[in-house]
């Protein structure tokens, strides 16, 4: 194998796949990237067995072939090469990299030992804008459970049904849901749970333009992320990411969404966030709760702990009954931070019922209150 490639293209490609490496001592090859050269394209693939990612970069391929090389080391070397022109020559198990006055010989592992990318019949597939997908993921992913014992909740639930894409995440204490309209053919409808690590990777790879195609079956999901038109990245084709899905039944989140909400207040997202944050400054580990008290025209958000007390007030447009509900302040702040709209609607019923933060564009976060006896 022999090819000539632009240093920055090569480096950019490596940085796309760099995150997905395995750390098992028994499988050192998972720390390597599979490099395949053919027909003017070099493709880079990495995998941790749960997730695999591949990108393609244009190159002058003099002689096709393949090898695997340690990806972290390789990325560090390539990004630091002295000349823009990089020549890579490989035998089955080692590579020579030359750039200007620098040359390296790197030991690799033969490519036939690299676990093949899973192929699957993608029964269902959808196309949407990268910006929309990453925005939706950002609106809900903070609510994922990080507890490995509840692996079903260690990710984001995707549902394509009723001409809507709905994403949901929950850790059992709060639930974040967002949906947007899209055409979903009857035989195309379905759902999946995308693992948290894949969610993070998809958010990282999604740009602001172009589309992403999602395909999935019962065991796997694939994302084809078209490369942005922005700048000369050297990427040809889309970045391809395949991931296992979390297998199992996602909790029936619809049933915990309050049917009728008695009271609601419209608030500036940022003001609400600042208010909660200020009030929460006195909460302690022992008493991590704030009380949201609403009465005619005012919301008071107060905190108290052995550290002291706080009370921060906001004038609001409200005429309903006096109600006070306690929450973990973090659970209020998380959605307020993740959203980008200026205005949110805060809904509540009584001190035992969940509070809801909602936006008109199909987002809601249901937050279970803290009950103080």
């Amino acid at each position, binding site marked *: 194998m022999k090819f000539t490639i632009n240093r920055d293209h090569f480096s950019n490609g490596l940085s796309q796949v760099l995150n997905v490496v395995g750390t098992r001592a028994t499988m050192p090859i998972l720390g390597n990237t599979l490099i395949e050269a053919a027909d003017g394209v070099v493709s880079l693939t990495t995998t941790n067995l749960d997730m695999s990612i591949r990108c393609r970069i244009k190159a002058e391929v003099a002689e096709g072939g393949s090898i695997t090389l340690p990806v972290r080391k390789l990325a560090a070397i390539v990004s630091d090469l002295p000349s823009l022109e990089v020549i890579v020559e490989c035998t089955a198990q080692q590579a020579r990299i030359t750039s200007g006055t620098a040359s390296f010989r790197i030991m690799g592992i033969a490519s036939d030992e690299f676990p093949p990318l899973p192929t699957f019949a993608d029964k269902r597939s959808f196309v949407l804008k990268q910006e929309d997908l990453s925005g939706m993921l950002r609106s809900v992913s903070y609510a994922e459970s990080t507890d490995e*014992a509840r692996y079903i909740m260690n990710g984001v639930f995707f549902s394509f049904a009723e001409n809507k894409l709905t994403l949901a995440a929950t850790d059992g*204490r709060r639930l974040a849901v967002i949906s947007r309209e899209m055409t979903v053919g009857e035989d195309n409808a379905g759902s999946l749970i995308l693992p948290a690590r894949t969610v993070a990777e998809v958010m990282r790879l999604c740009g602001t333009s172009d589309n992403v195609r999602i395909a999935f079956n019962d065991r796997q999901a694939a994302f084809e992320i078209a490369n942005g038109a922005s700048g000369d990245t050297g990427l040809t084709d889309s970045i391809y990411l395949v991931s296992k899905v979390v297998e199992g039944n996602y909790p029936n989140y619809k049933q915990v969404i309050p049917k009728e909400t008695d009271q609601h207040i419209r608030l500036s997202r940022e*003001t609400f966030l600042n208010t909660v*944050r200020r009030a929460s*400054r006195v909460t302690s580990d022992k008493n991590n709760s704030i009380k949201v008290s609403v009465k005619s025209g005012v919301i008071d958000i107060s905190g108290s702990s052995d550290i002291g007390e706080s009370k921060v*007030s*906001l*004038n609001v447009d409200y005429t309903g009954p006096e109600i006070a509900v306690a929450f973990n302040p973090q659970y209020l702040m998380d959605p307020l931070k993740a959203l980008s709209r*200026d205005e949110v609607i805060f809904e509540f019923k009584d001190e035992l019922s969940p509070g809801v933060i909602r936006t008109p564009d199909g987002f809601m976060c249901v937050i279970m209150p803290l009950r103080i*006896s």
Partner: protein
Amino acid sequence: MPSYGNNSTPRPIHILPDAVASRIAAGEVVERPVAVVKELVENSLDAGAARISVDFAEGGVRRIVVEDDGTGMNRDNALLSLERHATSKLEDAGDLDHIASFGFRGEALPSIASVAHLTMKTRDAASETGTLVEVAGGLVKDVRETGAPRGTRIEVADLFYNVPARLKFLKSEKTEAAHIVLATRLLALANPSVAFTLSSEGRTLFSSPACESLARRADEVFGRGTASGMAEISAEGDGITLSGLLLSPGTGRPSRADLYFFANRRSVENRLLLSATLEAAESFFPRDRFPAGFLFITIDPAAIDVNVHPAKREIRLRDEAKVRDFVLAALREKFGELSRGKSAQIAAPRPAAVPAPTLAPGTTPRIPAASIPTPPATPVKAGILREVAEPPAPPSNLHANAPHPAPTLHTLPESLPQLPSWRFVGTLSGGLVLFETTEGLLVLGASAARARIAYEHCLADLEKGEPVTQGLLFPLVVELSPAAAGALEGGLALLRRGGFEIEPFGRGSFRLSGVPAWFPVEAADEFIKNAADSFAEGGLRSARDPLQARDTFARIAATHAGRGPAPADEAQALDLASRLLACKNPLADARGRAAITLFTRRELTGQAVQRAFL
């Protein structure tokens, strides 16, 4: 206490009238060799000795010699002292109510003399020559003049030679010797101003000059290091003085065997003192781990009855409640002080000059070398004040959200928790976190630390009964065996008091719709099952001992809450550390696993390390 008599003029010995003698706790005075040692040494102490030596052979059966430089006796008193009920320490029955000397019965010498060969050599200050008396089986065999220093030397040989049944009941020579050693140590410890020597068969077991401090005495008598980790305490009030050496809070000892009590300098076994001490130690030591120390209560002799046990091992306190309350309160306070002291040492700041990382990146991949060194953490306090004092955010374009004109309220006391300013060194496998401070190297065990924090939360919630409960979106249904379900029914009140929202859900299952805010939901299922088992075993039988039930409950809950990986970065590590330091006892979790330990600079530059590195 040997205040009685002064050093030169012994009081006359007289025979107690029957009326008094009959009121004295009857029973066997000499059950085993150690009793002889104890009686003889107590006599020496009563005689105002400044120096006492004890020697024994073959577990004391073969020979016991106690020699003192006390008042000594003249010929008449020497002979009289061997008679039953002959004592110089008691005048009438009224004296029995306020005994200030070790002896009071006039029983010890005759009892010993009746079961052994006893040789007494004694001289008081007024006599020119000493007296030598030889007794066997209770009969005086010989009395003669002899040259002798002032004081008394009593040799007891062939103990129980005439009571073979007794001999048979004795334990091994080693065991009897061990009893003698311990008893002599305790006597020496309780009387630090008297020089003591203990020897056996040519070996000196300990030899201590008069000591000014109890700690020094403990080291002399029990061996070096005995008092390390212990602090000298003293407290007074209500006519009672409590003093002694007390083990600082921490991981404690595996049994209560290292707790010794003394009442008016008499070593005693007392259930009341023991239970008060254990109760005081409760929040400072893990359960199943115990405090240790030498605790002396000094109280008006009239408030104490030593005339209850023939060997005087037990005492009766006339006002038990008063003594108990005092000891409990005083020890709680001392444990608190000591714990704060130890925490303060642990809370020492990072060293002034932060040394460059000495661990080359790559060699120890678990240590995030990139995070060393780091800028000092901004004190939280300043942050809070700034944030709260900051004016509200500018009004947004939504008119409804204009800031409320009412001033914000902030009551911020001085005691805001500070992040410790330790230098984060890194993490080790097993969830250990390392910090450096001016005092040395701190090792924090993440899961024990979390368990300790959770344990104190839980206990506080249970005590106050006002837990904060996090409602669950998806109630958890826990299925139990019929037996466990039955047991859990009985414990629901306790669980609810702890902040669990739980109710029976039919057919041995329970529905959990809320957990205490500090409790990780993921551990709930297993916790409920464990709690049910514990109820079934009676460990959580709340009706009988609510305190213990709460403690057991908190321990189980805390163990579940403690699990998890080590903190991922410096911020998390310091956060965990500061929460741990806010605990009453940050040193260990409720099961006795160390939560944080300091290796002082001294220890680190100690021999083992020096040998390895220098």
